[in-house]
């Protein structure tokens, strides 16, 4: 699992970043246990074969992910980065392919069907994007003050962003932006570029929101999917009906809103009813009784299940485990032997953190509902393997920190 150039026990000890991996193992334990809690009862009622249990599949994904991490750590990240551009364009091709031959689930095309397994190219794209941008930005700092380069780097982020938005998967798409910006920040792109970009983006986003939420239909120049618009309306707690709607339209709109805000409401009830200490493992009722819809309880809303059953104490534990992983990442970034390593590690931290923040935020109605998984906890093979690979990058940077 580790490079052959181990020389002494002392060095080996420093090879593996222990807190990082303890945090990861803890999260994997929590993930398997609560995916079983969310799906086990239903699956045993269905007499599913043991290997069809979601929790078992998740564990297999964990194992496979760890194996892939081991393989990836055999090669120095700098050598891996040479393939970054290729991987990047390959992932772009996959994203286009999704658009053409993807499988549709719940109204969005996010998956490619490869017979026994289906995978989500957008997850792979995130990794490829990390490498490509880090590689691109790891040039001498002096060159980074050129605006053209900044625009180019931005372009690298916007291309997959646009393709993923098209799926449509606005949530996953939005992950690319903060990740890209953090990498630019760490790489040393002049702050004024970033501040300008940030201000511009903020203006643009507010314009888009105002347009989507308040403009009359024929003034709308940005066409969001209907469900995306509804999610935003739910998030901002606005009426679905246009201002000049009749009373009956208003009523239908209210019913519609009630329906659309169902998941958010139920997630809040799940998290809140857990109280301080929770109801106990497998004692939560929200998932078992189907209030938290079965289709999302074990993936996008797994945090609701954990929070209901373990309460605030459990939420604290999960956040604690994540902060161990994230701060290990920041530490690894600080100790990296070169700028590529530092940018890459910072990118991984930003990527993971964006996922965590958006997903948990959505479970407590701080964020609008998006399809962003919770790294390592949400059920889903692609997401698990890509999260592990991202953490594997940290390990790779860590173990190669002294190779000058």
């Amino acid at each position: 699992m580790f490079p052959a150039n181990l020389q002494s026990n002392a060095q080996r000890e420093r090879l593996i970043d222990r807190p990082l991996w303890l945090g990861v193992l803890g999260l994997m334990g929590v993930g398997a246990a609560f995916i079983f809690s969310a799906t086990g009862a239903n699956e045993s009622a269905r007499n599913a074969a043991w290997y069809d249990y979601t929790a078992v599949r998740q564990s297999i994904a964990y194992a496979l992910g760890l194996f892939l991490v081991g393989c990836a750590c055999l090669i120095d990240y700098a050598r891996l980065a040479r393939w970054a551009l290729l991987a990047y364009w390959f992932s772009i091709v996959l994203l286009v392919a999704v658009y053409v031959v993807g499988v549709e689930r719940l109204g969005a095309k996010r998956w490619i069907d490869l017979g026994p397994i289906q995978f989500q190219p957008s997850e792979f794209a995130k990794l490829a994007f990390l490498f490509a941008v880090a590689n691109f930005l790891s040039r001498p700092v002096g060159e980074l003050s050129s605006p053209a380069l900044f625009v180019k780097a931005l372009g690298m982020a916007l291309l997959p962003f646009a393709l993923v938005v098209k799926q449509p998967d606005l949530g996953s798409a939005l992950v690319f932006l903060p990740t890209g910006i953090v990498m630019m920040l760490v790489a040393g792109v002049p702050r004024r570029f970033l501040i300008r970009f940030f201000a511009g983006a903020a203006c643009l986003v507010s314009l888009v929101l105002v347009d989507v939420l308040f403009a009359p239909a024929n003034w709308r120049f940005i066409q969001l999917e209907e469900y995306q618009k509804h999610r935003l309306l739910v998030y901002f707690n606005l009426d679905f009906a246009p201002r000049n709607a009749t009373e009956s339209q208003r009523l239908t709109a209210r019913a519609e809103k009630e329906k659309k805000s169902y998941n958010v409401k139920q997630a809040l009830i799940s998290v809140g009813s857990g109280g301080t200490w929770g109801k106990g493992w497998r004692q939560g009722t929200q998932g078992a009784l189907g209030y938290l819809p079965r289709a999302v309880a074990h993936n996008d809303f797994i945090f609701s299940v954990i929070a209901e059953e373990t309460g605030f104490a459990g939420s604290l534990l999960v956040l604690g485990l994540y902060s161990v992983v994230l701060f290990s990442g920041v530490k690894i970034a600080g100790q990296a032997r070169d700028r590529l390593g530092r940018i890459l590690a910072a990118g991984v931290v930003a990527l993971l953190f964006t996922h965590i923040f958006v997903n948990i935020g959505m479970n407590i109605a701080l964020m609008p509902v998006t399809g962003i998984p919770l790294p390592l906890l949400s059920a889903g093979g692609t997401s698990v393997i890509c999260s592990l690979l991202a953490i594997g990058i940290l390990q790779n940077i860590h173990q190669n920190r002294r190779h000058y």
Partner: protein
Amino acid sequence: MLVFDQLNKGESALRILAWGVVAGLGILLAGLWRVQVLSGDEYRRRQETQSYRSVRVPAMRGRIVDRNGLAFAENQPRFRLDIYLDELLPQFAKMDGQLRKELLASRGATNAPDPGLLDRFLAKFSKAPKRVLITPNEREWLRRQARFAVVSNIIQLINQRLGTQIVKTEADLYKHWQQQRALPFPVINKLTPAQVAILTEQGWSFPGVELELVPVRSYPNGQLAAHIIGAVRTYDSASEEDEAFDYRLRDYRGLIGLESAFDRQLRGRPGAKSILINSSGYRHRQGEIMLAEPSIGDTLVTTLDLGLQKAVEKSLAQVNGDERGAAVVVDTRNGDILACASAPSFDPNAWIDGISHAENTRLLDPKMKYLFNRATYGSYNPGSTFKIVTALACFEHGILTTENAHDRMRTLGYYRIGRNHKIDDTAPAGEYDFNRAFVKSSNSYFIEHGLHLGINNLLEYARRFHLGEKPGLRLNEEAAGIIPAIEDVPAGGIPGKTANLSIGQELTVTPVQLAMVIAAVANGGTVYWPRLIDRFEPGDTLSDDPVERVRPGQVRTRLSIRPEHLAIVHAAMRDDVALDEGTGKNARVKDFAVCGKTGTAEVKAGNRLLDRITWFASFAPFESPRYAVIVMVESGGSGGGTCAPVAKRIYEYLRDRERGTIAFGQN
């Protein structure tokens, strides 16, 4: 430490990143604190509200028994057949899939799995619009049909097995599904023992079908004392006290009689259970929690005697089989109602499984008035039986004395008041002293003395028997009777009115009221409150709750009748039965000295005779009075001819009971 190290040292960009992460995690933590700790209780309440349904569980209704504990109203176990919809969910889904496939096939499409990769690729470029095969409304309709198909298949199988013809419509099921989804769907309300045997012996294995044992109100003696005991009907709608419940299981409400008057005590305290329901509103497996056990209603012990009641009703029924009347037996020593019958009667069991429209119409027949309690609710002119009161009032005021009671008065066979008011007398013209006038029921004699007495004195005396007031049985069906108000009478009175009142025509009484009058006369002048309820016992025999007793022999008024006057009246009443010329001779019983007075009140409109109310008011035995018996028959021939024989049969029963030749509860 790992976190603080990253915040304070290292490169500024990484410090910004670290602070950003800390800030983000801090926001999440604050959010979680707010949701889980600060609003935790609120969300737990919301969670409970949406996932629990409370059900009101009715208590078993208290029994109504006679003074010896024999049951008038009780509860019988009965088997019911229910279908638990939640256990059929897999079948619903399967049937739904099948129906959907059929519908799609009929529209030339399949719900086959997704087309292959190539097809999907080609479909990208095809211009054909995507067809919507099934609209959401149709989906909903299909699910409805699927549920109905599964349930009606099961009902079909039950019908085959039991040979029954149960039909449940789609509308029945849908209504239940909409309103009471978490409760089982009732299929058969009443299973015969044979059906239960079939279902349990042959290894019953239909999913969702269950036998349920429920208590059902039952009146083992059918029509016996039905007017007093009353009836119940099943009751579905919620009252204010159970608005807090989401569902209420059926229970009973009293309709008439004691069942209605003491509904609250009999109903007991309902329990509550809560059902865990899933997001589609179905009951969740093992999700029932009993929050409070129901506690059975009180047992109402009446003062009635079941055997005597049977005898009384049988005696009354021997008038002509189609009689309308009433009979009341009161213990003269304390005012206990021992029997209280009204004819014609009805079977209170008729309401238990829902009464038919035809039966309901029959019971409300304006002439027979089956539900009408003639004994307590019917007011009638007492006729000549009122002469007892007139006589006592005359003695009280010195109009009659022990001496002048033997004076003879000549009568003409009618009594003329003023120029053109003539009152007929059923007793022939002749010479009458008090005893003969009473025994022959001479109107002239009593009118003469009544006029001397004056209407105010007579009314005042009648009021001391509490005529014109409700007797206080605590039934809802209780009339006060009508007695003219003293203020309504002009000074000096109207002679015609006074004359009519003296012979019991200007006022009305109920049979129970008259029974209380006779009881007071019999016991020497104590007017008791009638007592129909002896006590309320806790329905649960193991309970420590106290027994609520109604004190026997509560005195309402003590009349101070001089013993010598009482003796004269008692003797006259004895002679009315004992002498062959007495009007009440048909009531004579061997070895049991019955004292009585007959009465025949004419109901007239102008001069046209509409109806006759015949009476026999009596007590016995003469030596030491214990029982007062009142018999009243509408449209009878005469008091002596129609009612006295009824009383005779009642007294015979009482005599035999006292001798011990009849056991309790028999006749």
